[in-house]
């Protein structure tokens, strides 16, 4: 055999191996991509399609309505806008309170001491519990009957019993308290691990300059935590926009629709009321766009202010 044929053979062998490698690599990622296409991308596209029709879950494409569904939810019928407003109100209450509390907790529990460890363990426990269980626990605490513990407590202080979940002024606050209770330990944990990565010299330098504790917190801790705070801000905002089960259990959207959230509106239109699947589709699309915009805006607006080490 001549040198040339040998070379050619080797090349062909290499080519074969190259192609086999390529195919194998793709075969490894293919299941993941397939699952995504089937259960994430296709549904999203299908949702756009659905939102242009009037129909229900068994017969989704009854009549073509074009953008009528969007006009319905955004302009003509106030229900969607009300639920959107409720949700936004909830987010505006929950995110700042939960975020600042978890940063404070993290700084508070920062030192390696037994009591801090213990407190951290206790604060984190609610995060592992199903939201639906927490909602049941708290609706028992906020029970309107005089046996509810919240009513029991305010009675001790001489106030009248209050229908916590049944009045529109306090219902959303109760839901927020429950969700703050459930998630604060987890967020504090993330901030704690971030705090641990701040080098000790920074604090020593601050101490040498005899900077006060408050000043150290605002001038050193907070800026160095900003990447995590920023990340948490995005995830908390988008997650709390999707709030569903805690509200469904605790208030059922009531009184009236004063605590109904966007996701409950979508669910009701998809499964509970007849011929409104298109509305559910349209509001899903609007919600998705809002969530994407929040993510983008957060990135754009806060990029400059975040301090990266």
């Amino acid at each position, binding site marked *: 055999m001549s040198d040339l044929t040998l070379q050619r053979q080797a090349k062909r062998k290499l080519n074969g191996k190259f192609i086999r*490698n*390529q195919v194998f*690599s*793709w075969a*490894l*990622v293919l*299941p*993941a*991509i397939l*699952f*995504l296409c*089937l*259960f994430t*991308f*296709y*549904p*999203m596209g*299908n*949702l756009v399609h*659905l939102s242009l029709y009037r129909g229900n*879950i*068994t017969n989704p494409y009854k009549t073509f309505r074009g953008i009528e569904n969007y006009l319905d939810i955004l302009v003509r019928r106030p229900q969607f806008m009300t639920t959107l407003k409720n949700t936004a109100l909830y987010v505006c209450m929950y995110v700042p309170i939960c975020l600042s509390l978890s940063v404070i907790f993290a700084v*508070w529990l920062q030192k390696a001491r037994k*009591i*801090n460890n*213990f407190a951290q*363990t*206790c604060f*984190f426990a609610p*995060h*592992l*519990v*199903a*939201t*639906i*269980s*927490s909602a*049941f*626990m708290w609706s*028992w*605490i906020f029970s309107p*009957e005089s*046996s509810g*513990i919240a009513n029991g407590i305010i*009675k001790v202080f001489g106030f009248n019993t209050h229908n916590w979940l049944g009045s529109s002024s306090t219902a959303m606050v109760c839901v927020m308290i429950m969700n703050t*209770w459930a998630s604060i330990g*987890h967020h504090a*944990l*993330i901030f704690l691990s971030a705090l641990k990565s701040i080098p000790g010299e920074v604090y020593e330098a601050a101490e040498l300059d005899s900077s006060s504790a408050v000043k150290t917190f605002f001038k050193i801790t907070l800026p160095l935590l900003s990447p995590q705070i920023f990340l948490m801000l995005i995830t908390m905002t988008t997650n709390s926009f999707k709030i569903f089960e805690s509200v469904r259990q605790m208030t059922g959207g009531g009184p009236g629709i004063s605590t109904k959230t966007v*996701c409950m509106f*979508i669910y009701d239109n*998809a499964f509970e009321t007849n011929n409104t699947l298109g509305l*559910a*589709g349209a509001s*899903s*699309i609007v*919600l*998705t766009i809002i969530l*994407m915009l929040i*993510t983008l805006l957060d990135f754009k607006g806060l990029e400059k202010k975040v301090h990266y080490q």
Partner: protein
Amino acid sequence: MYQLKRRFVNYLPNLFSDILKLICVVVFVFPFYWMIITSFKTYGEAIQVPPTLWPKNFTFIAYSNIYNMGINFWQYAQNSVIVTAGVIILQCLVMIPAAYSFAKRQFVGKGIAWAIVISALMIPGTCTYVPIYMVMAKAGLIPSLWPQIIPHGCNVFGIFMLRQAFKQVPDELLESARLDSATELQIVCRIMLPMAKAALITICLFSFIGTWNSYFWPLVMTNNDKYRPLTMYIERVQDADVGNKWNQVMAANVLLVGPVLVIYLFASQKIIQAFTYNGVK
């Protein structure tokens, strides 16, 4: 004596902060305590005014009541176990090869494939359930446990974390294994997975908690008690009653929360560590 005094003086500034800490702990643990205590009360005592902090007569009547209510508790529990195990196994089967390929193999179009996977993070799962329900209904799968398992097959966050962990495995290790003519399967099982154990455990723990506690997905994807998990059991207990028999609702709640809390009691440090695991750097 002097030393003790000094230690006390040193500790004194912390006293106020520590007392406040303990009060916070009590406030945080109280709902759990209240749930458990209520479940051991009779109905009469549960709604008594003023409430009692410890049951006067400690009974299991709430538990026996919900057990004899004609709702098959074991069916719900079994569904929860099967769905949770199914989701974790399916996710691992999909996630591990993909993460390995993305981390350690070179191929044409890798960038595009990665972009597809990552862009899925932008699409909220709570919006896509209607079309998925319709697909499942068309496939005739609604009266089964599959709709609660299959749609969660691809764990994007998991792929992301596992890829990060796989990348930290040195390439030389893989090269020498290949020289010893190890197959790709052996490389993944014997080298990659043991070295990425922490990440894998964390991901599985997240999946476990998420699936065990999920309420929304089963609510949408089932129309028959036979296929519903434990999270929906409490609601059934509540529905079956006229008004809320709080001691029974709390008993059902204990049955759902109990296993998770018991595990947490024994492995709290490990679980906390897993949740702190910072694979995204």
